């Protein structure tokens, strides 16, 4: 956490309200997201208890498993979930636009452009918290290897038809959620805490109710009070007024409400099975339905507040203007979505349990590259993030005080103007350090030449800066600013930069490509479009150090999990 964020948190403590941690929205929000609020049963590895799911905030679809230990009921839940999720995904998969992708031509080995389809939009699945993201991944893992009756008529306990497909999609969402900056499967707590700094620790920010209480407290109350109430307040029954965002439920709810309801359901089911004649069965079926309804109501009572909270969070986030480079990152999500759509259509087997060496290395490289890209893009989109980078010496902003035309010493001299910038920032600059500024959305590179002596420049001496420098420059650092060029003082001052590119081909730089005196610019020490590492080999060329090329066992699709009597999923 940078000092700027810390300061924002402290301000939040002092004012009793969350403070902005971003001035623009850094994540894409779909026009029509699919919100998923799941609940699980305590003690079972992600056995679903119920969920609210849907794209319409006023009409969520309620799913419930009246007896979570019953395999058939769990499968019914997953089939219902598939009925909601898969049509939503298909809706995005249909509309496509033409795009180009460079591929290696198998015959010539050259990189060529190929026309491909790119889905015009991608689905966005929003869960309340990070634990929800983990549950999506777990559900994906538990269902993608299942066999339906059609695939394998012999298998015991066949899964409903679309469940394995649902598992493959949930797995894809779960994997994509690990890529920094991606928006296919965001957690609401992450989205909100990215954009607001609350007066509590990041640990407490994981509680969606408390987080919202800080960001948008009820009138007349402080965030701290409202957050405490969201965390602890209980009604007369001893139930939390703001139920946890799940998927885990509150133990008091399990013990006092859910367990008796499940027991009643079990009793009604046993009674129905023991019914003697049709009339009796009808009556007992009524009792069973009533017991099931009761559990559905309980599930809804625990998920509905979270459902509303997620939509309220969406409202708050939508009020922020979208960052300029968010669309570009969303396009990457669309590529990822289109890629998986094509793999499913091509009939490829489900994602393996463990990635092979090349896939794993590729995923890791992607995450590292995207992390660097995200950091650079957020800083360029948002002056508040850039302020953090300036504070840490990775960027500086200032006014151009002088521009001197100069040329390179090659046969055809190209323009290499020298620009003097006055800054109060303290960038970590060494000789010939490359710095970048954004010129019409593209990075323009410059080279750091040295510091200029303050006294030699006319004008711009201390108009307004004096006080600031005196206040900020601790003893000993100020005088260093008057040192000779090339010696690195820490207190900023006048920096001379040589502009290196983006000035056109001619001898004279193109209009607008060279900064002018009086311009206010922001240079970064980090690249705007970070490059990834070297290309990794194809799976067929995996080196022996990493297990060698995939053998015959990789060609056969992975077997389903063996089914046992006591499976929890």
């Amino acid at each position, binding site marked *: 956490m940078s000092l700027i964020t810390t300061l924002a948190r402290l301000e939040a403590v002092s004012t009793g309200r969350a403070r902005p941690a971003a*001035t623009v929205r850094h994540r894409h929000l779909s026009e029509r997201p699919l919100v998923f609020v799941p609940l699980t049963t*305590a003690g079972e590895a992600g056995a679903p208890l119920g969920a609210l799911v849907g794209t319409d905030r006023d009409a969520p679809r309620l799913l419930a498993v009246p007896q979570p230990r019953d395999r058939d009921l769990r499968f019914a839940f997953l089939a219902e979930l598939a009925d909601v999720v898969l049509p939503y995904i298909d809706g995005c998969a249909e509309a496509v636009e033409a795009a180009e992708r460079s591929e290696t031509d198998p015959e010539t080995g050259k990189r060529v452009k190929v026309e491909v389809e790119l889905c015009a939009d991608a689905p966005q699945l929003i869960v309340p918290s990070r634990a929800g993201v983990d549950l999506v991944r777990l559900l994906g893992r538990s269902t993608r290897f299942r066999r339906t009756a059609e695939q394998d008529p012999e298998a015991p306990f066949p899964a409903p038809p679309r469940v394995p497909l649902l598992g493959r999609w949930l797995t894809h969402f779960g994997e994509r959620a690990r890529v920094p900056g991606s928006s296919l499967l965001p957690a609401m707590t992450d989205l909100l805490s990215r954009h607001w700094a609350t007066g509590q620790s990041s*640990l407490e920010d994981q509680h969606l109710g408390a987080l919202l209480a800080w960001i948008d407290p009820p009138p007349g109350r402080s965030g701290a009070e409202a957050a405490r109430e969201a965390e602890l307040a209980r009604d007369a029954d001893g139930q939390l007024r703001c139920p946890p965002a799940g998927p885990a439920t509150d133990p*008091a709810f399990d*013990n006092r409400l859910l367990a008796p309801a499940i027991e009643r359901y079990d009793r009604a089911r046993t009674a129905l099975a023991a019914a003697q004649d049709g009339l009796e069965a009808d009556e007992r079926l009524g009792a069973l339905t009533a017991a099931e309804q009761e559990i559905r109501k309980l599930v809804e009572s625990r998920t509905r507040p979270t459902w509303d909270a997620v939509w309220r969070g969406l409202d708050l986030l939508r009020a922020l203007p979208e960052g300029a480079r968010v669309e570009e990152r969303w396009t990457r999500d669309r590529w990822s979505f289109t890629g998986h759509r094509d793999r499913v259509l091509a009939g490829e087997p489900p994602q393996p349990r463990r990635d092979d060496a090349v896939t794993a290395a590729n995923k890791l490289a992607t995450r590292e590259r995207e992390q660097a890209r995200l950091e650079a893009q957020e800083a360029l989109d948002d002056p*508040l993030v850039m302020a953090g980078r300036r504070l840490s010496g990775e960027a500086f902003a200032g006014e151009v005080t002088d521009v001197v035309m100069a040329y390179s010493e090659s046969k055809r001299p190209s323009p290499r103007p020298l620009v003097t910038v006055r800054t109060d920032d303290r960038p970590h600059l060494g000789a010939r350090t490359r710095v970048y500024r954004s010129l019409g959305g593209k990075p323009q590179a410059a080279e750091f030449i040295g510091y200029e002596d303050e006294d030699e420049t006319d004008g711009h001496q201390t108009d307004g800066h004096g006080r*600031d420098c005196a*206040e900020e420059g601790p003893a000993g650092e100020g005088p260093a600013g008057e040192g000779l060029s090339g010696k690195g003082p820490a207190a900023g001052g006048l920096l001379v930069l040589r502009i290196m590119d983006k000035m056109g081909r001619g001898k004279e730089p193109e209009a607008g490509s060279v900064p002018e005196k009086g311009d206010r610019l922001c240079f970064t020490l980090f690249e705007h479009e970070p490059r990834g590492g070297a290309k990794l080999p194809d799976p067929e060329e995996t080196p022996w150090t990493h297990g060698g090329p995939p053998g015959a066992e990789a060609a056969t699709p992975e077997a389903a999990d063996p089914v046992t009597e006591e499976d929890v999923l």
Partner: protein
Amino acid sequence: MDKATLAGALGSPSVFGQSQFAFVRGNAFEAKVKADGGTELLRLVHEKLDRSAEPPAAARVPDLSAAGHAGRAARTELALGEAVLAPGEWTLLDHPLLALDVAGSPAFLEPDAVVVHPDGRWTVVEIKSFPLLDGSADPAKVGAAARQAAVYVLALEEVAARLATAPDAPGEAPRVRHRILLVCPKDFSNLPTASAVDVRKQRAVTARQLARLTRIEHIADALPEGICFAPELPREQLTASVESVPASYAPECLSACELAFHCRDRSRAQDAVTTLGRPVRAELGGLTTVEDVLAAARGELGDPGDPTVAALRRAAALRAEALAGAEAPTGAQALAGVPGTAPAEVAPCL
């Protein structure tokens, strides 16, 4: 002392509790693992930890029941001593009770099981109901299990040392293995699978922490006369009693201590920056209260030569500049200009 009741009486009830579903499932799984005299459990110990030993065909499962905690602990010690005297045999101790000295008062610990190998060495077995999915489990839960097992290892080492100094000791002290066996359900089934976990690091950390703990008598000595923590006392009196014991709250307490919400309220009332997390406290050096930090950032307090203060002022200036430059977020949050923002004149005039 029942800290949960105390927290409730203080008006900041604890949020801990166990769902009966988790409880039932945990017990059912443990019973399954230990069924048939621990055949499955011993097979796992043999397979994961001690392949060179004789496979466990039959094992001794001594009866450890006795009256009271001290009695059960003594019975466990006796059974361990007998097991050491029976080399070449596997012994399974189901729910033994161990005593460990914590800050001068004895604490009783109950591992899920302890296995004595044919070579006389001891292994702690921890049975958990979180799954081992495709060979890996939640690292946070494994870490917690390892820390728990490390305490058992320490307690067993004390027993071993006592056995070695007994009059009829067989010679050197029996060794406690530093690799424990963690038994979990496999994937989505209820079938047990296991993994050996090295707890040397956790053991060292716990041993050091136990040695450093303030003795409980010293804490008691420091308390004023007449302090009482009975939950039926009026809230003010109880609060005063709890106040008399120094506590240093950090957000991590919330996941470990029943009184954490109470301590958090006190910490917030004192305006301590630690409520935002220990790293924040570390970052801010000598400034320990929120108002001090904000005043320092506004330039009203602190020595500008202090690097922390200088950095804070720069941060405040940069933040104010960025927020002023960007349009105030509309909608629910019209926040720019709220008091508490650094005054504008601190902002550099770029």
